[in-house]
């Protein structure tokens, strides 16, 4: 009798185990992200888990300043993580921390049609390691009031850096505290000076010809300051963390170039009464004879090589980077990486300022940063050397030689 009871109990136990494993397994995934994206991903996680009730996603958000440092420590315990630019992806791929997605893409027959361009640009050794969920795009912001006052037509459509220079000159006026500058430059912590080089598709200083284009771009930016059309770099040097949108709102600058994120900053400030200017945007200029392009950097999602649930983690990131999620991004004023015929219309819909908002989305965007793990250290060297050039402490030839020599010594030949 006892034996029989034991047998029955055993059978029940085994049966209950099997039935449990037949049902959908409960899975908890750890997701590392930076804090700026919390609201967006809270929403996307909510949408995803509504469809997949067996999946729980624990997102940990870290302030963006500390994110890079923290991610190094925690990436091994995460299932998925985000990164704000391609060189970061390359770094983690080098470390062996990222799962190659090609097999999963093929197996799940994921539709990548809306993000193909970016995916191609972030392949490493011909493999896909991450998917883009958002992108950015640079434009020129200009103060319409200052253009009107000077009786100059607004820049529209195609234009060149030479024309930008000329316009900046025409828009510069006044002296001392009444001075109005045609163009605004950024503080030394940023690398804004390379942007005219970016429109020549020079994005990687590890290639000599691209480095040369960066140097020409730096010289162009310095010539704007030397001509008095924008403040001297040394005046900005003590202005670390300067608020360029705030400076623009004071009405002292006619034009400046930066990414689409400034729209939100400017609109909010104007709404709050922190500035009473009328502004609009124009495409980023290009060099005479070049095709017009703009630059942008994609925000990327990755699956870690250490995850226990690669399929589910992949399923989540492909959801966040797909057509369906792009609607959520658009609704939250993000510029989604996913682009189809609806994106441009939806992006511009209901947005009253700036008038030509479509320039954000209807230009050819190339990646501002290469998917190269050595990019960040190399770019930092350029930043240090170019700052000396912009401060008039060394000429451009020396700057270029120093960059080359230091990149070789400190980056390429470093083990």
């Amino acid at each position, binding site marked *: 009798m006892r034996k029989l009871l034991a047998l029955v109990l055993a059978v029940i136990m085994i049966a209950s185990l099997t039935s449990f494993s037949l049902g959908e397994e409960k899975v908890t995934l750890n997701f590392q992200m930076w804090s700026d994206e919390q609201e967006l991903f809270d929403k996307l996680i909510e949408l995803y888990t509504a469809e997949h009730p067996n999946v729980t996603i624990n997102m940990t958000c870290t302030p963006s300043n500390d994110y*890079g*440092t923290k991610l*190094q420590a925690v*990436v*091994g315990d995460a299932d998925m993580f985000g990164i704000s630019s391609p060189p970061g992806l390359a*770094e*983690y791929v*080098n*470390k*062996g*921390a990222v799962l190659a997605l090609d097999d999963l893409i093929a197996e799940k027959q994921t539709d990548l049609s809306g993000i193909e361009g970016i995916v191609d640009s972030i392949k490493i050794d011909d493999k896909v390691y991450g998917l883009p969920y958002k992108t950015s795009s640079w434009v020129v912001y200009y103060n319409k009031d200052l253009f009107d006052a000077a009786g100059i037509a607004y820049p529209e459509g195609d234009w060149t850096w030479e024309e930008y220079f000329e316009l900046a000159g025409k828009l510069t006026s006044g002296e001392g505290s009444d001075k109005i500058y045609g163009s605004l430059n950024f503080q*030394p*912590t940023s690398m804004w000076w390379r942007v005219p080089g970016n429109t020549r598709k020079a994005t990687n200083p590890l290639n000599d010809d691209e480095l040369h284009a960066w140097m020409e771009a730096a010289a162009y930016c310095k010539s704007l300051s030397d001509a008095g059309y924008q403040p001297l*770099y*040394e*005046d900005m*040097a*003590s*202005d*670390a*963390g300067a608020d360029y949108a705030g400076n623009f709102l004071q009405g002292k600058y006619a034009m400046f170039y930066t990414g689409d994120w400034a729209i939100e900053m400017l609109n909010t400030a104007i709404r709050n009464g922190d500035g009473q200017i009328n502004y609009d945007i124009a495409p980023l200029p290009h060099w005479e004879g070049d095709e017009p392009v703009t630059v942008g950097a994609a925000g990327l999602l990755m699956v870690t090589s250490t995850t226990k649930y690669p399929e589910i983690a992949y399923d989540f990131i492909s959801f966040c980077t797909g057509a369906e999620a792009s609607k959520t991004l658009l609704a939250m004023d993000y510029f989604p990486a996913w682009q189809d015929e609806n994106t441009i219309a939806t992006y511009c819909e209901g947005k009253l300022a700036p008038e030509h908002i479509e320039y954000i989305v209807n230009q050819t965007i190339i990646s501002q940063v290469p998917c190269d793990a050595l990019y*960040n*250290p190399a770019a*930092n060297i350029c930043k*240090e*050397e170019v*700052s*000396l050039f912009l*401060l008039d*402490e060394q000429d451009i030839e020396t700057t270029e030689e120093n960059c080359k020599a*230091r990149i070789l*010594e*400190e980056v390429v030949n*470093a*083990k």
Partner: protein
Amino acid sequence: MMQRKKSTSAYMRSQRKTALFFLLPNLIGFLLFVVYPVFRAALISLTNWNGFKQMDFVGFYNYGALFSDSTFRISLNNTLLYTIVTVPLSIAFGILMALLMNMKLPGIKVFRTIYFLPQITSMIAIGLVWSLVLAKYGPLNQILIALGNTNPPKWISSTKYALTSVEIVSIWRSMGYNAIILLAGLQGIDAVLYEAAKLDGANAFQSFLHVTIPMLSPTIFFCLVTQMISSFKVFDIIIAMTQGGPGRATNVLAYFVYNKSFVDSRFGYASAAAFIMFAIIMVFTAIQFRGQKKWVNY
């Protein structure tokens, strides 16, 4: 006799045990968060660890490579210069301030608090405010222009003055702290000594030189050691004001270590640099401890 000695040592032993017991919480922390990481860093410095999987033994390659790294050499030079300037000056000013604060003046306690404030203020805030003070058209240069200087320094936007700017801020920040420590030392000096000096006909300066300074020497020594160690490790003020720039003009060792590890992911290399920094601090501290026998009065 033998009996007595034995009982003393038994007593000492039990006392030692008690002491150890009380020290334990701190000791565990020290072992876990200082001693272990130091040994671990020593091991890492012999590898090419990238913070994740790759970790091959490279022997002393990192140490050799460091000395041919121009950025490392520059940061080492800057650190030495920074230490040589800030340590003596912040202590000298600290002594002057302590003497002032030791006077029985109305409202002196308010000043003691004010001078100590920089020490408890966030370095980021200090950096921001000083950046404004040192700006090209900032208040400091306005004063210099008013005094007839037609070409005032560009401070943190020139390689020539950037390190000096950082040093000024650093001295300004730490002298109040030194002053408070030195003030405690001053107040511990027996008034009888001054009285005796006075009877011997010493004037104020002589009694400062022959009574105050010798009696204050243990406190000065303490300030010297702690100040020097923190000078070698300077980091926050650099991040807050110059990020090592312009160019590499204010790149210091700790900033170099930070950049190589957390920006470039070369933890092996960075650990080697950190170890060289550790060795330098140790040598300097050892020299000071040896030297103290000559000038410190206990």
